[in-house]
């Protein structure tokens, strides 16, 4: 009697297990490899929308099956690390420059065969690297309210100007940029020795530097007039302008810290040919223009025709690009934990 009781009682369980196995096998079957498909992992939000519309859709119209995986950068990197040495889930991965550098340093990416990228020679040289194909870029520039800040700043020194005491705002996650900027005011002209800037940063803090944990917090402070000067991506400043705020940007004489988003091919990608098709689609005029129009990032392909007003606001002149600091990611990665701790303790 007891045995039949147990058997009957586990019937629902066995049915459930069967359902799980069925689910899984459906999932396996759906993932069988075919020549004309590519799996791309990238970040979501409006960036994902832009990529979907300007890169994925045209590719699918050309009969390439594109599967996108939307996830935060750290998750993507962790998955790549876990899959190292095994057939990979992704054929193309998207990262900002500092993550792409990390991925490469862990041996997760394969070098790009530049002969297979038709627009390679047209890419802005500042963003060329052997292990990825860049998509868009911007830079952390001085953002100011022209109603209160006059004359237009030409140097980072403006942040220390007593005229603007207590009117300077900094984003917490930009601590490396702020440290570098402070070091330029202490005489640093290299892409190392950022620690020279701590004294200057402390002085700025004592003069009333306000720090903000998120973009929205800083936006609100600028909108309300509490903050007149800050450092932010030009793309963000354009967004604020479109939303009706009166802000202007300038790349000072010391330069600017660039940021770029790019696509790479993992070493264990299973559809390399399709990956190159995708990478070429990233550099088409349509894709480059779409990013500029929708999310205000500048195209990496030189000579991309942008509408007149967009050109002046979103783009960077060759002279400005020349002034970009050549970020040594290894140096930044090595020191970031210590810098962050010190920023927390002394500057926040």
């Amino acid at each position, binding site marked *: 009697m*007891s045995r039949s*009781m147990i058997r009957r009682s586990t019937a629902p369980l066995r049915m459930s297990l069967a359902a799980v196995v069925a689910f899984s096998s459906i999932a396996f079957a759906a993932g069988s490899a075919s020549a004309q498909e590519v799996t791309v992992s990238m970040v979501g939000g409006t960036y994902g929308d832009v990529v979907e519309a300007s890169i994925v859709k045209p590719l699918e119209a050309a009969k390439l099956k594109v599967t996108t995986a939307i996830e*935060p950068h750290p998750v993507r990197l962790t998955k790549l690390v876990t899959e190292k040495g095994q057939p990979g889930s992704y054929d193309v991965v998207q990262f900002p420059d500092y993550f792409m550098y990390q991925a490469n*340093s862990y041996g997760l990416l394969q070098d790009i065969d530049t002969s297979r990228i038709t627009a390679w020679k047209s890419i802005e040289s500042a963003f060329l690297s052997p292990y990825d194909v860049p998509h868009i870029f911007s830079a952390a520039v001085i953002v100011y309210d022209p109603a209160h800040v006059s004359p237009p700043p030409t140097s980072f020194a403006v942040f220390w100007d007593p005229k603007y005491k207590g009117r300077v705002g900094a984003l917490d996650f930009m601590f490396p940029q702020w440290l570098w900027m402070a070091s330029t005011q202490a005489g640093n002209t290299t892409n190392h020795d950022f620690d020279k800037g701590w004294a200057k940063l402390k002085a700025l803090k004592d003069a009333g530097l306000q720090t903000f*944990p*998120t973009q929205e*917090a800083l936006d609100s*402070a600028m909108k309300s007039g509490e903050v007149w000067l800050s450092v932010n991506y030009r793309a963000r400043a354009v967004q604020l302008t479109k939303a009706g705020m009166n802000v202007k940007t300038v790349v000072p004489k010391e330069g600017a810290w660039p940021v770029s988003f790019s696509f790479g091919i993992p070493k264990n990608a299973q559809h390399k040919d399709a990956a190159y098709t995708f990478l070429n689609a990233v550099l088409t005029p349509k894709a480059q223009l779409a990013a500029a129009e929708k999310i205000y990032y500048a195209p990496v392909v030189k000579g991309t025709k942008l509408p007149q007003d967009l050109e002046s606001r979103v783009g960077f002149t060759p002279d400005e690009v020349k002034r970009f600091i050549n970020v040594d990611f290894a140096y930044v990665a090595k020191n970031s934990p210590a810098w962050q701790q010190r920023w927390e303790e002394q500057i*926040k």
Partner: protein
Amino acid sequence: MGDDARPGRQLGWLAAPTCIVLLFSFVFPLALIARYSVNEFVPGQLMREALTPANYVRFFTDALFQRVFVTTLVVSLASGFVAVLVGIPTAFALRGLSARWRSALITLLLFPLLVVTVVRAAGWVALLNERGAVNSFLLALHVISEPIRFLRTAPALIVAMASSLLPYIVISIDSVLQAVPRHLEEAAMVLGAPPRAAFRYVILPLILPGIVTGFVLSFILSMDAYATPLLIGGSAIRMMSPMIYVQVSELQNWPFASAISIVLIVTSVTLSALITVAAAQRKWR
């Protein structure tokens, strides 16, 4: 019944399927994490097989992580405490209502759980920002002349966490309260007990198990909290769960992250067990 003992043992086997599922999807993965926690971290090379206590030592000797540990404990205990303090009256308030109102309010209680934690935390930020709803409101009424800094303070984090724990606590206490006949405290008072004593000596012991369960649950959930401490505590109030994520995802230091995880789990479980046992002991006083 004669074969009372045999069904008992046989019935135990019904728990077997769950055991198997948990073995392969919980115990083994955690064992893997425990194994990683004694590995060595090599920057750039990621992880090297080893049997070193270095990660644990680092966690307990580095001042930053000591602070993180203590902060996590204090905030979790405080959140649970606040949630219980507010939850008990709320459960009592529900008790005196008609069935229709009660069901409506209990449904309303579940609404916060429909909102994804990230969005809920973003809502708190919009409320508590220096330029947020609360400050704008107070400034407009001239109650204050300068915005109050709510975010990145412990009280704000505790309130936000307690608010997300309240549904669990209220339901926990409410379900126990339901088993307490309404007339009980009246009977006590008829027999001469003042209302406060009636509550303390008659009702409270009966609902204490529900309170303890609710508190322990809130404590455990707070220890694990990720999105809320991240967005509201910011970098001023650092808790272990966001720290683990940073170690894994930004620094790729899996051994250290694993060690922090094990410490967190062991602490949660131990403290919960201690609190539960201590509460059970008090009942016999």
